[in-house]
């Protein structure tokens, strides 16, 4: 009788994360670099001669409040899903979506306020153009965020989000908080560097 058994050492499984969530973080890194470039450009330009100060529309304050509250309702949504309270989840995601849309409308109205203040995208000083570029590009990202929210909302309504299936909602929440923080950064940045 011959026994011929190969005994080999264990090959450890390397650590790994959910590739989709990880991809989202990488995407957010690209967005950070995008806005990082613009705000750096803003600072460089502001150091030049002939900078003309900007007046920020009052609505920016209101909109900042709206997007911060929406982050709060997003937290509520995630908690509800973790506890498997479907009703609360639907309401919370719904409110967040509505607040997201409200933010977008608010930003458009803020542009109107800026025009009323004679701050135009083109034709005026560069400082004004910058405000439009920063808030406009942020707005475009918020549109993508709202689309993600709608996807999450539909999933929630169909009962596909629950304790065992949190990925969609968690990714949605990460992105949404990110967009909120990004706006907060831009707003404070503009306030400090008029």
């Amino acid at each position: 009788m011959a026994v011929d058994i190969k005994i080999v050492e264990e090959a450890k499984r390397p650590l790994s994360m959910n590739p989709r969530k990880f991809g989202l973080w990488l995407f957010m890194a690209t967005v950070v670099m995008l806005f990082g470039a613009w705000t750096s450009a803003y600072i460089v330009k502001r150091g030049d001669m002939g900078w003309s100060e900007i007046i920020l529309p009052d609505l920016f304050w209101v909109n900042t409040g709206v997007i911060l509250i929406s982050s709060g309702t997003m937290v509520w949504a995630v908690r509800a899903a973790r506890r498997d309270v479907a009703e609360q989840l639907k309401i919370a995601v719904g409110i967040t979506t509505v607040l997201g849309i409200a933010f977008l409308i608010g930003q458009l109205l803020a542009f109107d306020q800026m025009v009323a203040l004679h701050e135009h995208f083109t034709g005026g000083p560069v400082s004004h153009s910058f405000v439009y570029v920063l808030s406009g590009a942020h707005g475009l990202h918020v549109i993508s965020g709202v689309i993600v929210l709608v996807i999450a909302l539909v999933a929630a309504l169909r009962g596909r989000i629950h304790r065992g299936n949190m990925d969609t909602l968690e990714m949605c929440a990460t992105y949404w908080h990110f967009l909120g923080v990004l706006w907060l950064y831009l707003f404070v940045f503009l306030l400090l560097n008029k």
Partner: protein
Amino acid sequence: MATTDIHIHQDVHHHGDGHDHDHDHEHHGGNFWTTYIFSEDHKIIGKQFLITGIFWALLGGSLSVIFRLQLGFPDMNLEWLKPILGGWITPEGKLDPEFYLALVTMHGTIMVFFVLTAGLSGTFSNFLIPLQIGARDMASGFMNMLSYWFFFASSVLMFISLFLETGPAAGGWTVYPPLSALPQAIKGSGLGMTLWLVAMALFIVSSLLGSINYISTVINMRTRGMSFTRLPLTIWAFFFTAIIGILSFPVLFAAALLLIFDRSFGTSFYLSDIYIGGEALAHDGGSPVLFQHLFWFLGHPEVYIVLLPALGISSEIIATNSRKPIFGYKAMIGSMLFIAILSFIVWAHHMFVTGMNPFLGSIFMLLTLIIAVPSAVKIFNYVTTLWKGNIVFTPGMLFSIGLVSFFLTGGITGIFLGNSAIDIQLHDTYFVVAHFHLVMGSASFFGMLAGIYHWFPKMFGRMMNERLGQIHFWITFIGVYMVFFPMHYIGIAGFPRRYYSWTNFETFSGFADLNMLVSLAAILTLAAQFIFLFNFFYSIWRGRLAPANPWNANTLEWTTPRNPGHGNWPGEIPAVYRWPYDYSKPGAKDDFIPQTIPFSETPESNLPHETELIKLESTSGDDIIIQGGKLEGNH
């Protein structure tokens, strides 16, 4: 007499880990469209990038020969190019001066972005990452497919721009405003520039999709045992490249978007105080230097996006064909990391003469010169790997050694340029052209060719002809030096780059012969590439069938079948037990030990700490794996 086969796979031990990439993919038939065109298979996507890259390389190379004709033979009658260039040849048989600038611009754009970024990273990151880390495919096959098709759309737009009546973009590959912003300044800044910007925006999207995928795959999809310190250097290089891409390409996007606003919407980010025909333009308050800052914040990292994959490829090939472990594996990773970090804080060395504060200039000079340190570490490591190696001169190896040579020659001139005082003389001369063509252009191009020769057997299941490869190497290698070495002298003498002709300046007439030599060498070098093209396409269909592991290499891709299908390994993905550079290990039976061989099977060659590793793991009971064992008995 009975024979019992016991097959206990590692699966059993890892039950419940639930990693979807471990499930066997069945081989879907798929039709022509889903298999070859809208494929989500990383190998096909890699080949799509490769073929598109080769197309662009040929086009970009041909453009350069056209403008070299002008520079080398200013009196030549170019009437015969009329069938191709049409109105761009003047009635006197000369190249249109504005079209000369367009040629230079498109040559640079095509080579830097479409060939050496998309063609190089796109091909090899896609093809090699899953194969070398032991994954079935990329983290997201769909995003990967999108990445190619964004690149394709971008290519189509850039290609169309070549045929516009006003010509393609002509403001240099760096598209500095105001030249690139005002169609009144040059014809190419009209529709050609618009298409350039849109194409580049698509290109950036493609590149970001690719990079996100590469990083995500390298981190999350490695096979069992593939720890970071067992990754081949190719993967490390692609990984750093992708990180640099993610951090720098968005900045180019930011710069391009502002340029678009300036051009098409009337903002003044980059424009100020411009008078045309005595009339001031409405644009006021902008700064063209701002564009340079934004551009070079991408631009400098971009040169490493181009170079790092080539360095990774050559590390792998040089170790394999020297039959020696790579010297300083960790130092190689460390220097790539250091280069990647430094590449973000040296951009202003392209702007020493923009009137920047001399003190700031000194800081950027210091940072720039520090790059020489990790670069030198890499060169030394290549040389020490080759040292006393059992060198096999495959075409891939030759091109890798060529890369090291160019990286050295071109890197040294970088140290000249990095001195802000010397750069006042050398900036925007042919010295700069010589520098970056050697260190970036030729080195990366050689890396790409080395990679093609080396992995061709895995890509197409056949071998390329070695003899033709060697001929291709020698002509190209000598040709490249003949093209770019003389440019150093021309540059030190003060020849500015991007000039259509110097016949107006008596001082410069002394270099007419040298310029002629350069042009002839350029034609020769381009011609030699047709040897490669023939070899490449002929071998795809008619080459000798490739053995499973033609170079006796250690990495995982050589454990796949000759033509790996979707999912790469027909059975289970192999596990990895060692680093990829166990070549000529003292005591070992063969001069290579693939990564899939456990230490417990090579007691004769294990180092003390490796034997330690087996003991440690086999004492803890359930870590012992019984692999494909065989029990025999006579009952």
